[in-house]
């Protein structure tokens, strides 16, 4: 008995001894056997060099490059390894062509961040400076050069889509520990939305550095190194030619153009005017230019295509007509007198069919249509009846992608506004509003507003005769083709057969007498379009046009919104048709019209005829 308990004490002691010995041997292996790699603490230092992956490239739908990278160099400093007192700070300042007084300040700033982790001392030095500096690096222990890359845009277009890349902010570092001060991150547009795919993955290279600031090779044969993983390429749906052309046409105007391939929901072009050259927001000039752009009263940084709320005007008559047909309150051959006592209208013959109503964009006609939709007599109280009508109408409108946020792959997209019963109940009080209170909705005025993307999406619904695919800008990220969600067809609550008379009206508006979109007519192409004039209490009315072509098997649907540009038929319709012509035929034969559209501007011109106003490219 005694013997067995003594044994047990020995077993416990043996366990202690064995494990401590295992650790002791392991330490011997780590600290002594690996000695050939171990640093001589007096003369060497380990440097953790971050390997920055190249950011992913961005291509247009035909494989043309939209964004690429250009190599630049950052001068890094590891404050703990700097020989502060014996180093020639003035010489370093001369080499870098910077103010010599600031060098100590920069050093102190880096030191306050960390003594042992590298900080950026001077960002993006040129190749020439880099070349000169390289010769004298041995005089500056603790400093080294790290190569980085900057975004470049071969054509100064699509700034709002592509977005920009900038240094991470303190908040961004806090939110995600992947980022370290001095790293770059997508700030806007696709750069932000696809940041994780584009940025790739940083690697690290642990190297040994001697007292002369020379790298002596990799630490432990690269055991602790990790390779940088390059960012993935983005294959966008943009058509570089169409995008550039659209921006050219929008020069001197304020508003937005969106073009979508209806069968896929792929965005072919997305313009917000005034725009800016994306090359302005790159590298060292970024912060200065950003400051200027953000102060510009024309708000060039604001992406009107996704964020600007506009009353749709007469293009809103298209869904109104469709809802009327589906509800069975009108038929293709329903005619209404143009009774200007109901609502104002321009001079034109009475519409005898729905198509004629659309063609001539008769306001009283759609007043009647909307009245029949809203007041169907389902309830004896006209207030309750309107309430029932409007809530059903809301469902229809949402099914067209109106009043809801379209899930495009850009951040900040807005949903427009389709008023609901709750809104009017709040505004006027329950049972205190009826059709007569809200009739201006019939022609797309009043409380309703859309963003230009939704207008183009509406054109796509018309082109598809009843459905849309969520508009998107990227087809594939690296080798992964687009997410399944983007191939879902969202059906409007209106059956396909009811689209024919309305599309017919859009055809007539472009191609027949008295059509409001006559200036959108293109030889040999059957275009369907609808103009709108969105009333603007603050100044000149806004001009709107949506359309698609060809009428059968449409390949492009567009929306054009021109702020303060008068009737939709005057400038918006021809501008939209030029885009269609250019996309479908690859050229523009209507040179005179093209010249007029290009020359039209809402801004003033100087003595030489140059447009003063939005920043020129």
């Amino acid at each position: 008995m005694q013997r067995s308990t003594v044994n047990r004490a020995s077993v416990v002691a043996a366990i202690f001894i064995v494990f401590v010995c295992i650790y002791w041997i392991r330490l011997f292996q780590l600290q002594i056997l690996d000695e050939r790699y171990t640093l001589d603490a007096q003369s060497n230092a380990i440097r953790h060099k971050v390997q920055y992956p190249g950011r992913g490239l961005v291509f247009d739908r035909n494989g043309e490059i939209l964004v690429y990278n250009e190599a630049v160099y950052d001068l890094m400093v590891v404050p703990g390894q700097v020989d502060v007192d014996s180093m020639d700070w003035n010489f370093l300042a001369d080499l870098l062509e910077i103010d010599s007084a600031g060098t100590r300040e920069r050093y102190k700033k880096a030191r306050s961040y960390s003594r042992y982790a590298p900080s950026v001392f001077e960002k993006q030095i040129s190749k020439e400076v880099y070349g000169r500096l390289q010769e004298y690096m041995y005089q500056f222990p603790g400093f080294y050069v790290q190569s980085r890359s900057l975004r470049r845009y071969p054509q100064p277009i699509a700034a709002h889509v592509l977005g920009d890349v900038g240094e991470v902010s303190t908040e961004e570092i806090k939110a995600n520990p992947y980022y370290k001060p001095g790293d770059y991150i997508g700030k806007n547009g696709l750069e932000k939305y696809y940041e994780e795919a584009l940025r790739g993955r940083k690697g690290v290279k642990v190297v040994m550095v001697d007292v002369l600031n020379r790298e002596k090779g990799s630490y432990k044969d690269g055991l602790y190194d990790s390779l940088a993983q390059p960012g993935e390429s983005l294959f966008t749906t943009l058509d570089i030619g169409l995008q550039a052309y659209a921006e050219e046409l929008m020069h001197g105007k304020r508003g937005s153009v969106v073009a979508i391939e209806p069968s896929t929901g792929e965005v072919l072009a997305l313009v917000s005017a005034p725009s800016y050259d994306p090359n302005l927001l790159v590298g060292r000039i970024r912060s200065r230019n950003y400051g200027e752009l953000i102060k510009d009263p024309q708000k060039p940084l604001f992406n009107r295509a996704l964020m600007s709320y506009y009353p749709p005007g007469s293009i809103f008559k298209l869904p109104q007509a469709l809802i009327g047909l589906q509800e069975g309150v009108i038929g293709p051959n329903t005619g209404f007198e143009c009774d200007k006592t109901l609502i104002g209208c321009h001079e034109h013959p009475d519409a005898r069919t729905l198509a004629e109503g659309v063609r001539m964009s008769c306001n009283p006609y759609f007043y009647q249509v909307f009245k029949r939709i809203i007041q169907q007599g389902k309830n004896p109280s006209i207030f309750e009846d309107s309430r029932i009508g409007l809530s059903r109408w809301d469902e229809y409108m949402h099914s067209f992608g109106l009043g809801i946020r379209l899930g495009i792959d850009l951040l900040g997209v807005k949903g427009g506004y389709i008023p609901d019963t709750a809104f009017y109940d709040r505004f006027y009080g329950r049972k205190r509003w009826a059709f007569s209170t809200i009739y201006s909705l019939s022609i797309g005025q009043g409380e309703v507003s859309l963003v230009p993307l939704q207008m183009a999406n509406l054109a796509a619904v018309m082109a598809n005769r009843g459905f849309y695919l969520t508009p998107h800008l990227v087809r594939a990220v690296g080798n992964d083709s687009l997410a399944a969600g983007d191939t879902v067809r969202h059906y409007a609550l209106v059956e396909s057969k009811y689209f024919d008379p309305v599309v017919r009206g859009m055809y007539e508006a472009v191609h027949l007498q008295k059509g409001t979109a006559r200036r959108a007519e293109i030889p040999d192409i059957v275009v369907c379009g609808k103009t709108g004039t969105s009333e603007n209490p603050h100044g000149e009315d806004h001009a709107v046009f949506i359309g698609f072509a060809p009428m059968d098997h449409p390949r492009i649907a567009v929306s054009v919104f021109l702020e303060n540009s008068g009737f939709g038929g005057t400038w918006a319709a021809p501008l939209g048709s030029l885009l269609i012509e250019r996309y479908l035929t690859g050229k523009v034969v209507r040179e005179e019209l093209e010249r007029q559209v290009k020359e039209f501007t809402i801004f003033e011109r100087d003595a030489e005829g140059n447009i003063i106003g939005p920043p020129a490219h």
Partner: protein
Amino acid sequence: MGTIGGTLKNMDKPLLLVYFLLVAAGWFNIYSVVYDPESFAGFSFATRYGKQLVFIGFAILLAAFVMISDLRVFTQFAYLYYGICILLLLAVLVVGTEISGAKSWIKIGSLSIQPSEFAKVATCLAFAKFVSQPSLNMKQPRNQLRGALWFLFPMMLILLQPDAGSALVFLSFVLPLYREGMSGWVLVTGLVAVALFVAALLVNRYVLIGFIALVTIFLIWRNKRSVKNIALGGLLFLVCSLYTLGVEYAFNHLSAHQQTRINVLLGKEQDIHGAGYNVNQSKIAIGSGGFWGKGYLQGTQTKFDFVPEQSTDFIFCTVGEEWGWAGCTVFLGCYLFLLLRLVKLAEKQRSDYARVYGYGVAGIFFMHLFVNVGMTIGLLPVIGIPLPFFSYGGSSLWAFTLLLFIFIKMDARQRNL
């Protein structure tokens, strides 16, 4: 009250010496981690080394209090303390402050305390009190299980925080349990189970099963080749094989994220910036120490940035980097001495209570050393657990001091008798 002088005289001097040595060395290490030659602006209590000095001051007061107080203050009310700690562990789940993913702390004003640290002391006292009851025959598995419940319960509560490291420490009570009569096979089975678990994830299943078969054949060959032994061997083979396959199956049904973590811990996947980052940095730091180390305050890898949690869980890196293998040898030597001394003194105790308690203390210190150092040298997964007397922090220092000095007091009282 001549007993105070007597107590002092009867305190075990070697233990006392090791304690002060470790605490002092620990403080100098923390100083080194925080030390920055260029921004040094004189001593400050706002720094970690400043605060640690305050913690050490309180720890010594605590030790003195234990030495002058009546031992019955601790032994008599052991179950009460245990109950209070269980309540605190329950409370921390509800009102605890979350620090790096675990609700382990209770904030009272500016002071944060970690109940799991004090639960170690209380559990050790209560467990020893229970196991050392003369009426209890600890040779009986049923009583061993009842004893085990005393530490398994707080362990479960700590796992809920979740703080795997602190929970693991409670397993160290298996050692006193073994000492008091638990079959050695439990220890062996436990070790084999852990080894097979790791092997099942690292080694190809056919190779592993082949290896198990070889071991089985070897065991049968070495023993009497009777039908009974062959049948037992077959059963052993079957159980071990099914166990490894089961582990593999369970692993494959974990989420990809959990699989990655486990793989990184086992060194199968390189993830320098993810889960494996700390360990890699820690190994670089220790490895760069060489034989003699870089010298005190000369470490470059173990300051601020490269190794995270530098002054708490990864404090051992500083020892390795600045003092080298020579320093590590002294460090491990001191610890081994502490552990063996505790076992030796425990065996000398005439009171069963003191013996069980002594083993408990040794087990807890051993488990901390085992897990913490194992983690920094890349032999064990990263489990946050302090290194006794070295890691920055008041709660753990006070708990370890209390743990040790109650035993020293027990020992001194016996010598005084």
